[in-house]
């Protein structure tokens, strides 16, 4: 298989980037998308050129490190799939493939396809936790939690923090990411005590990081590798409104 790539190359945070064309031959359909980039990088090394930088680690769709815009779509054409799980079967011989970093003001480009997603860490720092220090925990079966509740909390907690929701959002909103965390914690009895404070802090932090607001276009749910539901955004809003009303 032979592909024509147009890849975003950018030196560092400050510099302006550009799309650069590459022709890659000898691609097998069994390769993953990242292995295809490995192949190209290997050839760039042979030519003495700087390799294309991209984030990746687990290569099995769970760490959330990888992520790029492939042909204008976050993580490429498949839904429920990270970039590392995308395989070359999804492309046609001779196709032109556009590869860009996830873009958002809150996700500055470091180099090529590598971006800075520390905004997500800051949102969690602002309140995305249950304050339980080591040693304080009661016996785990002392608080029964309904099966359905745990499953619902899990659905929200499944977020891998890749940033595809932000990348695909026309407003670069982090609402899906933040709301998934709020949902995960507020559904569980352990997380209810801090709910009001948490939601106000986390929503404010989203703004402070420079993410946009949510217009409910629901594109994020489609692109989310973990298929996290937009209804969590509803729950976040509910929690937020409740906190506003009940605030002393």
């Amino acid at each position, binding site marked *: 298989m032979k592909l024509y790539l147009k890849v975003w190359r950018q030196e560092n945070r400050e510099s302006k980037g550009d799309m650069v064309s590459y022709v890659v031959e000898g691609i097998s359909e069994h390769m993953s998308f990242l292995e295809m980039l490995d192949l190209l990088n290997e050839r760039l090394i042979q030519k003495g050129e700087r390799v294309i930088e991209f984030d990746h680690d687990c290569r099995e769709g769970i760490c959330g490190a990888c992520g790029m*815009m492939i042909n204008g779509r976050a993580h490429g054409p498949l839904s429920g799939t990270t970039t590392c799980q995308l395989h070359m079967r999804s492309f046609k011989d001779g196709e032109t493939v556009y590869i860009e970093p996830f873009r958002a003001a809150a996700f500055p480009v470091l180099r090529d396809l590598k971006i800075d997603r520390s905004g997500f860490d800051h949102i969690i720092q602002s309140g995305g936790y249950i304050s339980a220090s080591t040693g304080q925990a009661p016996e785990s079966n002392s608080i029964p939690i309904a099966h359905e509740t745990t499953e619902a909390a899990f659905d929200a907690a499944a977020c891998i923090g890749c940033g595809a929701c932000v990348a695909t959002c026309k407003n670069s909103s982090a609402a899906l990411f933040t709301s998934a965390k709020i949902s995960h914690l507020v559904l569980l009895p352990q997380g209810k005590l801090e709910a009001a404070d948490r939601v106000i802090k986390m929503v404010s932090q989203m703004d402070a990081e420079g993410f946009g607001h949510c217009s409910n*276009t629901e594109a994020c749910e489609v692109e989310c590798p973990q298929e996290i539901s937009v209804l969590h955004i509803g729950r976040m809003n509910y929690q937020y*409104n409740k906190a506003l009303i009940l605030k002393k």
Partner: protein
Amino acid sequence: MKQTTLMYKLVMAVTGLFLCFFLIIHLLGNLQLLSPPAIAREQFNWYSHLLSGNILIKIISYVLYLSIIAHAVYALILTRVNIKAQGSQYVYDKRGQVSSWNSRNMGILGTIILIFLVIHFKDYWYVYKFGHLPLDAKGNKDLYSIVISSFQQGWYIILYELSFIALGFHLLHGFFSASRTLGLYQPKYAKVVRVFGWAYSLLITFGFMLIPLYIYFNFNS
């Protein structure tokens, strides 16, 4: 407490829903135009008079003006925040494949509605309030005649119909979106609201669209 974009969005949702509610009243009033001309004239003019006199209605109308302004102002603020949040643009962008067009273009749709509102206010509200109108048999200002005569012009009809289509798409996303903003998250009720939103949007849109066409074809012939 620091203002957040979510608070702005709440204002938009509340004002938007108020406008949605008002549209029902407005449509019900306008449907009187579909009655036989003699009855329609009296009823419609009486109704218009009612709207301009009652103190309760006055208060509501001020809320209405305020809502439109607040809705538009916050739309503008949020749009500016969004543009800033986007940072650099994608060179090759196919994100549109995963969301509906109207949900992404509420601003454009809203702007069309706003322009329409300006024209609409100028032609009726302003004329009614400050213009010199003939009186009808009951002594009410004869807005009916103005309405009928303005809908004799083809371009005016087209302007209205296009605006209503824009409104329809705005409502189609807006109604359900407001419910989400206000915090509806139970899947069951979210579905109910979505179905209701569709029905509401279709009724309002086609209701409003029907009136100019009815007048145009009934009175021109």
